[in-house]
């Protein structure tokens, strides 16, 4: 197929879902079946188009240097340069064009059954289509600006979908939290975009990232603000800020666990196919900017460290969760940390590989958990006939102590793993597919995709370690430990959910889900097992030879993408047994440990979870290291306080404000002094406190909220302004 035709197809690929959004919103929003059919068909069309592009792209030898380009149109003709928006497919984009539409299509199909009884069925599909379309658009964008547009569009969709059960207060809180948290990252990204543009005059990926000259200039330019790093480094770090937000890296990871307040297919979209992958995708795109600084440069260090911290953080928290989806959410955070850490040590190919395999098995796990929840809910309904809860509309018991849950006191939580058990017999398809996904997540050796991709990261980290790279050493150790935890909590989850005897009536009466839900599970299970074989290392004992020329295909395909830079040359790696052994030990060890604790003697109803024996550590982990509480104290409260106080200040006039500040300061000092008095001198007087307080009270009487108060403050400003002008004039 000619390149022009492929370019056109690339243009067309993101359009069907976007169009289906428009069509559903404008025309068919009253017809449930038609709407969902349109959405599914649109996504499948997009999938087919993408596959055509993908399989053709695979055949093009020099795709890395010469990507497929679509016709560009002029977006912002600025004075100096024109700003073109176009599409392009390079090896990185091509692999995403395989994974994204495939995963999306399966999620869409799954949703038709999962959401079947929801009253806002059509709205759900509209937003889901927009979400998928935006992700497709992001993947094919050839420049940072249109990428950012789709990026924000996705942010908005995630907001709308996480808050889909808007009657549930926790859902819209989660939606706002997701939007606000990711927006912090978005703004850093925007700064990065603007800075990149001022430095290079273009935002086109290929003009910047495939151009060694531009890259080296950027690396040689010192960054603004005298940070002591190069412009390339600063831009990379700012753009990484976007990734931190979108891909839920520490310290902006707090939104992702709450995001599972949305319907389960949305969680699958966010955790696998779209949102979080977009963040990693962006970072992968800008890998050359990181690379140009040489190994172990500041930007690499930042990325690697954040990734490692996140991997560990997510894995530890996941151990102490009861909610089936929440375990998966933290495991996503942890696995994203793996990918980011991989990028941080320069393991580009390994990161892509892990991202893709993770997308498949995590989508599988989420949809599997959705199937479980669905089944348990049905069981619950079966038991308590009268109850007609909406799907997923269950309150959470474990973290929301608000009044809203109190009203529905003995609410049954179909997502709590303590309410499950023994589902293996009730839901066989779900069990076996979930098992496949779980083993892939745990990195069960040789037969799962997760093993190969995780092993690849560890191997690269070990390679860096052996060359004395600091960050690689950290990453290797942290990731190995996290992988151990991962295997452990996976075993815990599978055991608690599927093995043993049912711990509640609901679980005992659970039923297998409909074919529309199990079909995608089966497809994804196949990928979760076999996808790993696309990238078996060439020099791997026995298997490497078995695959012959196909071994290490993904890595060699994807690496043509990168420009050869003086500063960074990846040497050919030799096979080393240590990382392989590490992978084997952590995966099998974690699974074995989990099996010992949970599998052998499954939990009985009412029995406490063995992890709770960890005591304080458990509480700490169960409460997610108290990050939410910390953020509330550090950011949200002060901001709210400033805002509230400021409006009071306006009311009173500026002088009063100053006096009140003085008063507060005085009270604060007085308080400190009083403490000092009490402890040291015992007794003493409150003279100072009283004096300042009375001054403040005097000031309060100013309260008038009058025009003249406004003007008084304006006059102060005018006087100050004059002083400035006159001083600066000298």
């Amino acid at each position, binding site marked *: 197929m000619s390149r022009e035709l492929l370019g056109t197809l690339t243009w067309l690929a993101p359009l069907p879902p976007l169009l289906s959004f428009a069509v559903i919103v404008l025309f068919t929003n009253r017809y449930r079946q038609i709407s969902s059919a349109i959405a599914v068909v649109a996504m499948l069309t997009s999938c087919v188009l993408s596959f055509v592009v993908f399989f053709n792209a695979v055949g093009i030898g020099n795709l890395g240097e010469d990507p497929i380009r679509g016709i560009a149109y002029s977006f912002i003709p600025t004075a100096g340069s024109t700003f073109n928006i176009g599409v392009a497919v390079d090896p990185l984009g091509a692999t995403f064009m395989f994974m994204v539409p495939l995963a999306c299509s399966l999620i869409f199909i799954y949703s038709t059954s999962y959401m079947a009884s929801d009253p806002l069925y059509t709205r759900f599909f509209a937003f889901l289509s927009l979400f998928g379309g935006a992700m497709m658009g992001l993947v094919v964008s050839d420049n940072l600006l249109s990428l950012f547009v789709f990026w924000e569009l996705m942010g908005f969709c995630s907001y709308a979908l996480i808050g889909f059960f808007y009657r549930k207060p926790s859902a819209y809180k989660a939606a706002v939290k997701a939007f606000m948290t990711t927006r912090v990252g978005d703004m850093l990204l925007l700064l990065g975009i603007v800075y990149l543009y001022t430095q290079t005059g273009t935002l086109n990926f290929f003009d910047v990232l495939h151009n060694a000259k531009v890259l080296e200039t950027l690396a040689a330019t010192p960054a603004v603000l005298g940070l002591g790093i190069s412009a390339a480094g600063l831009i990379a770090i700012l753009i990484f800020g976007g990734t931190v937000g979108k891909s839920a890296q520490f310290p902006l990871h707090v939104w992702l666990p709450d995001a599972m307040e949305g319907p389960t297919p949305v969680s699958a979209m966010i955790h696998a196919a779209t949102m979080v992958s977009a963040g990693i995708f962006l970072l992968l795109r800008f890998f050359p900017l990181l690379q140009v600084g040489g190994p172990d440069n500041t930007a690499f260090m930042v990325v690697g460290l954040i990734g490692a911290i996140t991997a560990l953080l997510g894995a530890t928290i996941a151990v102490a969760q009861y909610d089936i989806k929440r375990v998966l959410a933290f495991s996503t955070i942890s696995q994203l940390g793996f990918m980011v850490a991989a990028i941080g040590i320069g393991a580009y190919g390994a990161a892509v590989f892990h991202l893709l395999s993770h997308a498949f098995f995590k989508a599988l796990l989420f949809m599997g958990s959705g199937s479980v929840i669905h089944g348990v809910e049905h069981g619950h309904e079966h038991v308590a006939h009268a109850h007609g809860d909406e799907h997923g509309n269950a309150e959470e018991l474990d973290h929301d102590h608000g009044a809203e849950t109190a009203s529905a006191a003995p609410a049954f939580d179909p997502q709590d793993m303590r309410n499950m058990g023994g589902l293996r017999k009730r839901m066989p398809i779900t069990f076996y597919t979930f098992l496949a996904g779980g083993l892939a997540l745990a990195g069960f050796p040789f037969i799962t995709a997760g093993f190969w991709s995780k092993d690849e990261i560890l191997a690269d980290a070990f390679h860096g370690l052996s060359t004395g790279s600091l960050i690689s050493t950290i990453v290797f150790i942290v990731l190995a430990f996290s992988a151990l935890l991962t295997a452990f909590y996976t075993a815990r989850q599978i055991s608690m959910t599927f093995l043993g005897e049912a711990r509640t009536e609901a679980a005992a009466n659970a039923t297998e889900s409909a074919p529309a839900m199990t079909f995608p599970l089966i497809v994804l299970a196949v990928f979760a097992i076999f996808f790993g074989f696309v990238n078996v290392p060439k020099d791997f004992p026995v298997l490497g030879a078995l695959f012959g020329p196909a071994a290490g295909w993904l890595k060699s395909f994807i690496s043509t993408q990168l420009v050869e830079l003086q500063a960074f040359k990846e040497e050919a790696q030799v096979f080393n047994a240590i990382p392989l052994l590490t992978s084997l030990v952590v995966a099998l060890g974690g699974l074995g440990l989990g099996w010992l604790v949970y599998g052998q003697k499954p939990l009985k109803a009412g029995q406490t979870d063995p992890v709770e024996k960890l005591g304080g550590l458990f509480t700490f982990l169960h409460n997610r290291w108290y990050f939410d509480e910390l953020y509330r104290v550090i950011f949200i409260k002060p901001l709210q306080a400033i805002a509230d106080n400021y409006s009071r200040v306006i009311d009173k*006039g500026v*002088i009063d404000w100053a006096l009140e500040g003085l008063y507060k300061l005085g009270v604060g000092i007085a308080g400190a002094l009083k403490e000092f008095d009490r402890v040291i001198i015992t007794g003493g007087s409150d003279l100072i406190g009283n004096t300042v307080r009375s001054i403040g009270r005097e000031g309060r009487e*100013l*309260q*008038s909220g009058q025009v003249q*108060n406004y003007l008084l403050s304006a*006059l102060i400003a005018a006087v100050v302004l004059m002083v400035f002008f006159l001083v600066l004039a000298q």
Partner: protein
Amino acid sequence: MTSELIVFIVLAIISVLAAVGLLSSRNAVYAALFLILNFATVAVLYLMLNAPFLAIIQISVYAGAIMVLFLFVIMLLGAERLNQAAPQPGLRWQRPLAIGLGALLLIQAAYVFITRFNSTTVAPNLIQAGPMEIGLKLFGPYLLPFEVTSILLLVAIIGAVVLTREK
């Protein structure tokens, strides 16, 4: 000390005193009369600054027409007694502060002007600023602002009518 300077000082003192009177009088009518006095002295200053036509306008339009309007409204509303007995609680703070700030502003201005004392001189040639010259300017280069101002006055008329008309 030239005679001009003496006259200036006398007039300046009168105008400042008139302004003080404006600020401190408890009766709005007196305040308005003080303002008229101020305007009148400024009109004399205009004369000294070679602006005879403006001096006339100052007296007839400003001190005459505009201030009469003020007095008219004061009388109409019966608001001449200024209720200073019940100041708002904030007034205690606000007044000294406002005066202080005003003084600061003045000091800044004074600083600017005093640094220029004697540094600049008046242009040697006295310009003609009679009605004819003003008129020629007004309907020559200043035609546009003149027309705009007339629209402005029209707006003011409409506004006054709209705002005060009872339904």
